């Protein structure tokens, strides 16, 4: 699979330069532009990434905090799959994408958002059911691995860990009984609670 044409990348950088400079009302250094162009959240350039971004939106959308797509979790999942995290097979993304297309009777990403969400909700319910659903194609039964990587990626990202949830490296004290108020968020830095959830 080839990458995007150089011209497209250049125009992307220019667009970034323009929008970022406008937003900040200031000049940007070349280093800042390059950093922005490398920002995984802005690189929706391959079919695999496009699908991952859509799945990120489906699992953890933007609400009053940014969701998994904005947190760049598509890139994390690609890296995680390439390195076998959570037992992911290296072909997980391609076989899952093909199975989604087959299920959609056409390209999954070309379906309406409503239909995409309905298809995924059905897969999600069946893949997490207590009894194995033999009617669910093998490739789609890998959904829990893919979803886990999105969830792990998001809540260990700066956005998920410190904006959606609360993160504090050095609490300085232990208070054994705190009244939980409406709207209070969980600590992503409660290592025990996370590990043994």
């Amino acid at each position, binding site marked *: 699979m080839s990458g995007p044409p150089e011209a497209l990348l250049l125009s992307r950088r220019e667009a970034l330069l323009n929008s970022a400079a406008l937003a900040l009302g200031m000049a940007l250094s070349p280093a800042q532009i390059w950093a922005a162009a490398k920002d995984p959240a802005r690189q929706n350039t391959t079919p695999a990434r496009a699908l991952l971004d859509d799945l990120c939106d*489906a*699992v*953890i*959308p933007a*609400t009053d905090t940014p*969701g998994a797509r904005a947190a760049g979790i598509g890139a*994390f999942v690609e*890296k*995680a799959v390439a*390195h*076998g*995290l*959570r037992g992911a097979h290296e072909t997980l993304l391609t076989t899952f994408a093909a199975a989604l297309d087959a299920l959609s009777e056409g390209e999954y990403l070309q379906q309406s958002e409503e239909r995409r*969400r309905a298809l*995924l*909700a059905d897969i*999600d*319910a069946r*893949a*997490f059911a207590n009894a194995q659903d033999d009617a669910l194609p093998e490739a789609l039964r890998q959904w*829990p691995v893919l979803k*886990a990587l999105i*969830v*792990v*990626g998001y*809540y*260990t*990202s*700066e956005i*998920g*860990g*410190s904006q*959606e*949830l609360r993160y504090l*490296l*050095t*609490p*300085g*004290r*232990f*208070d*054994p*009984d*705190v*009244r*939980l108020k409406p709207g*209070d*968020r*969980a*600590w*992503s*830095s*409660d*290592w*025990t*609670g*996370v*590990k*043994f*959830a």
Partner: protein
Amino acid sequence: MSAPQTFDAIVIGSGITGGWAAKELTQGGLKVLLVERGRNIEHRSGYKTEMLAPWDLPFHGQGNASLWNQRYPIQQRSGHMDEWTQDYWVDDVDNPYQSVQSPGFRWYRGYHLGGRSLMWGRQCYRWSDIDFSANARDGHGTDWPIRYADIEKWYDHVEEFIGVSGASEGLPQLPDGHFQPAMPLNVVEAHVREAIQRRFPDRRLTIGRTANLTQAKADQGRVSCQQRAICGRGCSFGAYFSTQSSTLPAAQATGNLTLLTDSLVEGISYDAGSRRVTGVDVLNTRSGGRSRYTAKLVFLCAGAFNSVALLLRSRSEQFPNGLANSSGVLGHYIMDHANTLGTVAVMPGFESHYYFGNRPTGIVIPRFKNLDNSTEPFVRGYSFQGGAYRAGWMRGTRQAGLGREFKESLRRPGEWKFVLTSFAECLPRKENRLSLDPVKTDAYGAPQLRIDFSFGDNERKLLADAKKEAAAMITAAGGRTLFGSDEPSPGGSAIHEMGGARMGRDPPTSVLNEFNQAHDVPNLFVTDGAAMASSACQNPSLTYMALTARAAQSAIEMLRSGAL
């Protein structure tokens, strides 16, 4: 090879016991060489990942699974290794050993300055005479040559120096110590403590006794615990006891310490004429150079299995089966606590309660079986460690749900859960043993260690009873049990491997005497877990430290009196 450098004492290994030996011997006025096989890790500046957030790491703290499967197939099973701490765990490919019986013994190690003192669980429990007299009482193993009265003041000495926080409970089976103020139980743990006390008056749930400071030790440059619970990364606050935070600076302050890192002891040399060890042969693992160092006495503190391995490899005409092994017992009677997940339960009714901060210890339920005249179908006992917490976001990886609703459900802390891990005493059995592989060698050409180990019927009976009692206690506290196991995790999983050079009263049946001194070689002391004649069911490190300090004092006195 140039003329050997000479010291009063050589300490092999810089972990929990090696650090203590170096401190006590240097403070006693001896010139000490401390030899560590691994690299130097400097206190404060050396804990490279300590302050990093998950998102600062390439794999967000989860670790590179393909690398781990390739290089850390065993160490990654510890449950403690993560992307922050992975460099503290040995590379399994570079550090091979042979394990015979399925499912294999898991030997978890850290080869660097401070050894496992950097990585340990910090739980500190005294043994009582119920433990020291157990072998004599039921006939398993050989009698310990000491009792509680022999070691009590050394427990005091160690606890006072390292700093142990905990609560006094007045239990005969788990003697109280010299404690800093206890960390509090959280609201669910406090509830369970009361419920257990009502339903089972002979049982007690108490906060873990942990080597995390609740009061600073300014004289050691150590700050009180910041409640991060990321101790395994190394702590620049010095809030938990490690060689780096505590014993090493004390030893260095005497001006009597010489420290060697990247220095692997290949053999301990023995002089048949004087019946003494004379020193050590050291390989510099960076330069490949070899040196000999001599001393009046040697403290072997390489970690239980490596200490035994070094004795087995240090063969001579007089000791063809391993140094100080006229008994033939060396390598035999190794142990590790049989442990498993006794119960996991949901604790309803506390949904509006949470906590702030990450306490670096859980709770303990000390042994309550076989304390008196008992009719149980097993000998010895078990205890539990664990605690209550609210399930974090990781629960989202195991449940159905998508979109806004899913995200919002994970925003709140999850259900309260209670975990109890069972730790059962392991009987000393001769067939559980260490030996040298006759064929396979390691990267330095030394014979690999072979570990023969399996748990026996008694350990299985203990864990079966533990599972039943864990569920009974949690149920009595209103919990709903989700899971419980009585299947022991593979040997080594408790990371409490011990024995192989046991202490005893009789030279024909033991390797060491009551002062951790080799029966066969008066100027050789082995003070790490190798010395253990039984395992009890408590975490053993505090006892290793107390035995080390006691042995060092004895060695200094023997040296002064001319007995060595």
